[in-house]
C-alpha cells in the first residue's frame, strides 16, 4: 500500500523550526558549557578544579569560602574531577581553548610534562615569589616542582603520607600479637608471624587493593629506601632526566631486592584472599568491618577509619629490606594546581592560588577542613586538630625523616602507570623479579630519551 505524502500543518512546521533553532542554540551553548566562568555586575567568576574525595572537596569548599569572603569581586565555581580523569584526559581539557582558570596538574603524570613541553601552562613565578614558596617548600620539593626551563608552572597544594599499615588493636590482642615498638615491623618474618596469627583466628592479614592500580606500588616506595643507599635512591628519583647521570640501575640488587620482598610477601600469603581483584574502597570497608587485621593506606584515611573504628586503630610501617635500615614514612606532594595558558581570567586565578598557598588557608582549609598535610612548612600548632594518629606520623617524620616515594616522583610512564601492571603480573605469577627489572631498565632509556 502506497502512502500519499502528508503535508505538515503550518503550526507544526513552525514548531519544528523553533525546535531546530533551540537545538542549534543548545549545541552552540555546549561549546562554552565546560567552563561557567565569566563576568557580570563587577563580579568575575572563575572555575577551579579539584580532585574528588571527601578531604579534597572539604578543602576546596573551605578555601573558596574564605577566598570569596576576602575577595567579594571574585566568585569561584568548583569543578570536581576524578583521579582517573586527573591522570588521563584532563590534560586535553587544560590545553583546550576553554579550560578552567585553575586546573589540577599531577606532577608525577605524563600530563604534566606534556602540558609544560607544549607551553599550555602559565608561569607561576609571581605566585611563588609572593608566597615565598621556594623556601617554604624546602629545596627538595621546590626542585621537583621546577621545570627543565627553570620556571615553576605548578604549585603543590597538599602533602600526604602513604604506605601506612593501619592495624586493628583488638584483633591483634585476640590473635596474641605484640604490637611492634616504635610503629615499626622489624623484619619480614615478624610480619609473616603476625599474619599467621591473624589467620588462626579466622581473619585476613594485610589488606591491599591490588586492582586499584596504585596500592601495589606504594609498598615499593616504602621499601626502596631500606634496600638502596641514599645516593642510589636519589638517582632512582632523578635519573629519568637525561641531564642526570645514571648511576643506579633497576637491575641492581638495590632495586630488585625491594621487588623481591614484595614477591615474598605474596608467597607467604601476607595479603588477603583475592587481593588482585579488590579495589581500595572495598579493602577499606573490609578493614573497618574487622575482616582484615591490617591494611595499606594513607594519612588521609585515618579520620575516616576513626569514624567507624573509634579508638580501635593503630599504625605501623612495613619491615625494611635490609635489617639494618629503618623504614621511614613515605610522602607524596605531587598534587599540583596550575593556570592553563588559555585561562580566561589568569589574574584572578593567580590571586586564588596565592591565597590558597597562604599560611592562613593551609591551616584553615588544607589541614583543618580536609585533614591533609601542608606541603609547606607550618608550625606544629597548625596540626593540633588533626587525627592523633596523623600527629604521631608527623612526629615520627620529624624524628626519623620522611622519604619521597619513587612512584610519586618519577613520571608515570616510568613509575606508577608502567610499574603497577608489572607488579600485578608478578603477583599473578606472570612475571619474575628479573623480568620486571629488565623492563624498567629499558623503559628508563625510553624516558630519558624524551626528557
Amino acid at each position, binding site marked *: 500500500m502506497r502512502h500519499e505524502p502528508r503535508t505538515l500543518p503550518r503550526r507544526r512546521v513552525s514548531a519544528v523550526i523553533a525546535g531546530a533553532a533551540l537545538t542549534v542554540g543548545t549545541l552552540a551553548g555546549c561549546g562554552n558549557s565546560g567552563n561557567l566562568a565569566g563576568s557580570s555586575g563587577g563580579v568575575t567568576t572563575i572555575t577551579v578544579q579539584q580532585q574528588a574525595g571527601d578531604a579534597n572537596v572539604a578543602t576546596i569548599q573551605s578555601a573558596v569560602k574564605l577566598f570569596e569572603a576576602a575577595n567579594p569581586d571574585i566568585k569561584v565555581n568548583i569543578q570536581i574531577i576524578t583521579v582517573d580523569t586527573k*591522570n*588521563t*584526559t584532563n*590534560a*586535553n581539557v587544560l*590545553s583546550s581553548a576553554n579550560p578552567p582558570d585553575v586546573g589540577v596538574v599531577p606532577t608525577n603524570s*605524563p*600530563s604534566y610534562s*606534556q*602540558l609544560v*613541553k*607544549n607551553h*599550555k601552562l602559565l608561569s607561576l613565578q609571581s605566585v611563588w615569589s609572593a608566597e615565598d614558596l621556594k623556601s617554604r617548600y624546602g629545596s627538595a620539593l621546590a626542585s621537583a616542582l621546577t621545570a627543565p626551563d627553570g620556571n615553576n608552572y605548578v604549585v603543590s597544594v597538599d602533602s600526604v603520607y602513604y604506605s601506612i599499615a593501619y592495624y586493628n588493636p583488638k584483633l591483634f590482642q585476640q590473635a596474641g600479637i605484640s604490637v611492634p615498638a616504635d610503629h615499626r615491623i622489624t623484619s619480614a618474618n615478624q610480619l609473616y608471624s603476625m599474619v599467621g596469627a591473624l589467620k588462626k583466628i579466622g581473619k585476613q592479614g594485610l589488606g591491599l587493593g*591490588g*586492582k586499584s*592500580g596504585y596500592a601495589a606500588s606504594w609498598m615499593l616506595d616504602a621499601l626502596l629506601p631500606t634496600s638502596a643507599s641514599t645516593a642510589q635512591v636519589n638517582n632512582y628519583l632523578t635519573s629519568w632526566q637525561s641531564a642526570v647521570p645514571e648511576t643506579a640501575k633497576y637491575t641492581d640488587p638495590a632495586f630488585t631486592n625491594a621487588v623481591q620482598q614484595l614477591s615474598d610477601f605474596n608467597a607467604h600469603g601476607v595479603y588477603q*584472599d*583475592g*587481593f*588482585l*581483584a*579488590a579495589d581500595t574502597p*572495598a579493602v577499606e570497608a*573490609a578493614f573497618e568491618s574487622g*575482616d582484615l587485621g591490617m591494611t595499606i593506606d594513607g594519612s588521609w584515611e585515618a579520620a575516616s577509619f576513626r569514624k567507624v573504628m573509634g579508638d580501635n586503630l593503630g599504625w605501623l610501617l612495613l619491615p625494611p629490606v635490609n635489617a639494618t635500615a629503618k623504614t621511614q614514612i613515605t610522602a607524596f606532594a605531587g598534587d599540583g594546581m596550575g593556570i592553563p595558558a588559555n585561562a580566561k581570567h589568569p589574574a584572578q586565578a593567580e590571586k586564588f592560588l596565592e591565597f590558597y598557598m597562604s599560611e592562613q588557608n593551609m591551616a584553615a582549609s588544607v589541614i583543618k577542613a580536609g585533614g591533609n598535610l601542608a606541603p609547606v612548612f607550618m608550625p606544629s600548632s597548625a596540626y593540633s586538630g588533626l587525627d592523633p594518629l596523623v600527629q604521631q606520623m608527623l612526629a615520627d617524620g620529624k624524628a626519623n625523616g620522611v622519604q619521597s616515594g619513587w612512584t610519586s616522583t618519577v613520571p*608515570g*610512564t616510568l613509575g606508577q*602507570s*608502567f610499574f603497577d*601492571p*608489572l607488579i*600485578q*603480573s*608478578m*603477583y*599473578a*605469577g*606472570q*612475571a619474575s623479579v628479573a623480568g620486571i627489572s629488565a623492563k624498567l631498565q629499558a623503559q628508563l632509556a625510553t624516558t630519558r630519551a624524551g626528557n
Partner: protein
Amino acid sequence: MSTAQTTNSLAPPRTPAEPKRGTPRRRPRRLGTALALAPAGLLILAFAGYPLIESGYLSLTRWGGIGSPTWTGFSNYSGLFTDGTVAHAALVTVEFAVLATVGIVVLATALAATVSAGVKGRAFYRVIWFLPGIAPVTAVGIFWSQAAVPQQGAVNVVLGWLGLGDEHEWLAQSSTAIYPTAAAAVWAGVGFAFILILGATEQIDVSIYEAAKIDGASRLRQFFAITLPLIRPVLAITTMLEFVWAANGFTMVWAMTGGGPGTATQTLPVLIYVKAFQFTDFGSASAMAVLSGAVLLVLGLIGLRLSNGRETSR
C-alpha cells in the same frame, strides 16, 4: 471478450508519461533525493569519516595528546609487531569475544526457542531477559566484580550455601579472570540478541511445526530441523554483531578487571586506552585502533556476505 482484450485488461495500467532514466524530468527527483540524503551524509562524514581519517593520520605520527603531531611514517605500525604486548592483547580480545559471543548467541537462542514455544508468562520473560541489556555497563561490571569477591561476594556466598566453597578467586587469578568477565558480558548482552532471535523465531510459519508434529517430530527435533535452519541468517548477523561489539568493548573489561591482574584481561580496546591516556602515546594507540578496526571491518563484511548468501539461497 477476445483473448487480446483479456490480456490487455490484466496488464498493469501504464502511466501515460513515465519519464525514462536520465531524461530531464527525472533529474529534479534525483536532485531532491540527493538533497534529502545530504544531511545524513554530512553527519556521517563529520562523525565517522573525519575521525577515521584523523585516526589514520595520527597513527603515522608521534603525538602526546597536546600540541602538533610529529610525522613518523609507519614506525608506529612496525612497533606493534616488535612488542609482544599487542599480540597478547589481540589474543585476549579474540578469547573474550569468542566466549562472550558464543555465550550470548547460544543462551539467546535457547531462551528465544523456549519463549516462542509458548511457555506460560512469555510476555513477562521477554521483558525480564531484556532488562540486563538496558542496565549501564559500568554498573553491571562493578556489580559482578563485587559479586565475585571471595567469601563476601554474592556468587561466592551462593556457592558456599550450595556446598561448593565460597573462596573462589576467579578475578584475582590471571588464568581465570577472563571467564567471569565474559560471563558478565553474556549477562548484559543476551537481552538484545534474545529479542532479535525471538523475532526471527516467531516469523516461522506455525503450519511447518504442525506438520512436523503430525509426523511425530519431538520438540528438540523441531528445534534442530526447523527452527535453527530457518533463523540461520539472523543467527549469522547476530553472531557477527556480537563478536564485533565484544571485541570493541571497553567498559565491561575496564569496570571488572581494569585489564588485570597484570595484563591477563588486557584486550585491545583497554590497551589502546592505556597507551593513549596513561602513556600519552596517541600515535601507537591510533595505529592499534586502525589495525583492529580494519580486522573487524573485514570480519563484519564476511559475516554480512555469509548472511546475505544464506538468505538468498533460501
